[in-house]
């Protein structure tokens, strides 16, 4: 069902942020290999560099040191347009704050995944409806998003992320704004997507969710430790 050939390879990756008081090191010489079909969870305290790592994996940011390979290709020399193409076709993202458009319907929000892709309206709708059925939200396709619960919103956001059939699904604190029941519903979605072959990299504070992942990494002071 889903193309899952994603490979993310971080080699001695560092990320420094300039600040008036001197450079702040968010990530320090991180080595990390994400194999296709894996479900990796990264935990760690606030400010440890989890989100920075996720943004690098999502190609939203670039390392200040080391090398980052996406599906075997170094992104360091790629132009912004080339990186944009990778994000467009190979990466799906789920955010803690959902980032949905409240006045658009559920279906329209999922279709927004294709905003910058040249596919026909018919295929766009078919793939959006398919993604909604994976997360069990197809019955609410016509409802405006602002009338949904937090859990439902996050499931719509997941549908939007996977509608493009990405090789890699990245989730940044996907249950951070949800209660326990909704968190479980969302994690069940991830579990199903993982079973379907999607590679997932999830950042979370919630230790209780780590069991859903096939591998667990811990981030501390900009360094990554394999816990499993």
């Amino acid at each position, binding site marked *: 069902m889903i193309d899952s050939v994603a490979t993310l390879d971080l080699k001695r990756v560092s990320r420094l942020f300039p600040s008036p008081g001197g450079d702040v090191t968010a990530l320090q010489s991180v080595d990390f290999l994400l194999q296709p079909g894996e479900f990796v969870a990264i935990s760690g305290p606030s400010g440890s560099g989890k989100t920075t790592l996720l943004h690098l994996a999502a190609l939203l940011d670039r390392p200040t040191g080391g090398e980052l390979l996406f599906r075997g290709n170094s992104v360091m020399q790629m132009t912004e*347009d080339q990186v944009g193409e990778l994000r467009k076709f190979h990466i799906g993202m789920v955010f803690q704050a959902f980032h949905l458009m409240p006045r658009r319907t559920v279906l329209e929000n999922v279709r927004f995944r294709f905003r910058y892709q040249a596919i026909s309206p018919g295929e766009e709708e078919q793939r959006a409806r398919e993604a909604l059925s994976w997360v069990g939200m197809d019955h609410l396709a016509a409802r405006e998003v602002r009338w949904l619960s937090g859990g439902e919103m996050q499931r719509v956001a997941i549908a939007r992320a996977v509608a493009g059939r990405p090789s890699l699904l990245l989730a940044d604190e996907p249950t951070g704004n949800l209660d326990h029941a909704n968190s479980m519903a969302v994690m069940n979605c991830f579990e199903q997507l993982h079973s379907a072959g999607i590679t997932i990299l999830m950042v979370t504070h919630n230790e209780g969710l780590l069991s859903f992942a096939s591998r667990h990494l811990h981030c501390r002071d900009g360094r990554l430790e394999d816990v499993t």
Partner: protein
Amino acid sequence: MKKFREWQRMGRDISESLRSQPGRVGLSMFSVMIGIIVLTLLLSMLFGLREQSRQLVRKFGANVIAIIPESGLVAVRGFRGLDDIAELMRRNLSGTHVAIMIRLNERVTNWDHAPVWAIDRKTPEVRGWSLSAGRGFDFEDEQRAARSILITDALASRHGLRPGDSCSIGHHAFIIAGIVRDGSGIPDAAGMNTITGGEPLVFMLQSTAERLEYSVDASSAAVFLRVDEARNHSVMLARAQALVNDPAWSAWRMNWVTPESLIRGIRDLQRLIALTAGSVSALCLALGGTTLMSLMLADVRQRVPEIGLRRALGGTPRDVANLFVAESCVITGVAALVGIIAARVILGLLEGRIAVPLSLEYFTFVIPVIVSIVLGGVFSFWPAQYAARLSPAQALRNA
């Protein structure tokens, strides 16, 4: 098809964004609209003046020079004063046709007391008048001081007059020989041009006026020169001016009216209006643009998470910049349309009530629309660039 889809998607994005922030959009539109109204009014005045200057020259005659002597000359020497100037020109300026016009202190008794002018038989030809009915004056009329008159269309239509009808001027009866079509000019003593566009006027031969001893209005008299097309108008003007610089004439001051001097007068007025109203409209547009820019900037700051999302979904910095520029152009475009409708209403109310002519030509409305859309593009450029340069990671982190 792909382009159409992209426009459709862009339209959807813009429509949603505008609907979600009615206050910001309304304020932006209002600020631009004020500038557009002022600009439209200004253009309408400027184009109106340009049209007026064209009409003025057309009515005056493109190759015509009017010599208007100061009133003392005619007061002292009567018809002879003008005749001598005309004769001086005839003798010395080959390639010109000379005619005179002088206002009489007489009015027609039974036609609203229409003013009466004395002319020579050449005047209609020199002034480029045409007749809508009847005939003009001929040599015989001049020789025998015929009791014939020409009247303007305005007078004829007002009283239902036709050639052959009669009237009284002073104690003498006259027959209408012909009717002059409206649209020819007569300069007054101050050098300003009075257009016979609707004025009821009567013309009789100078020889007749002299024989009947009508008195003249010394302040309204002129000698007209029509320069042949092949001749250089400026050279002939200089030669004519040199002739009256002769000691025999230099005691009398002459006013010279030419198409250029008429246009110069209009252009001075145009410049004045362009400078004052132009400054005001430029100021209004600059203020509108600045307001638009600050509101766009606030909009970008408010939509940082959305920008992050668009970038995460594969949107390029150019896509993001285009979205904000397009939004701004839509705002200013709609503001221009509303502003133009408002300006059209104002122009409709002003028409005929102010001295300045107004033009309602299509370009009076097209130019503000173009200016407005350019304004939208220019003033949204910086906010759009700011949005495009936002780091997507930072944008999503700040959500």
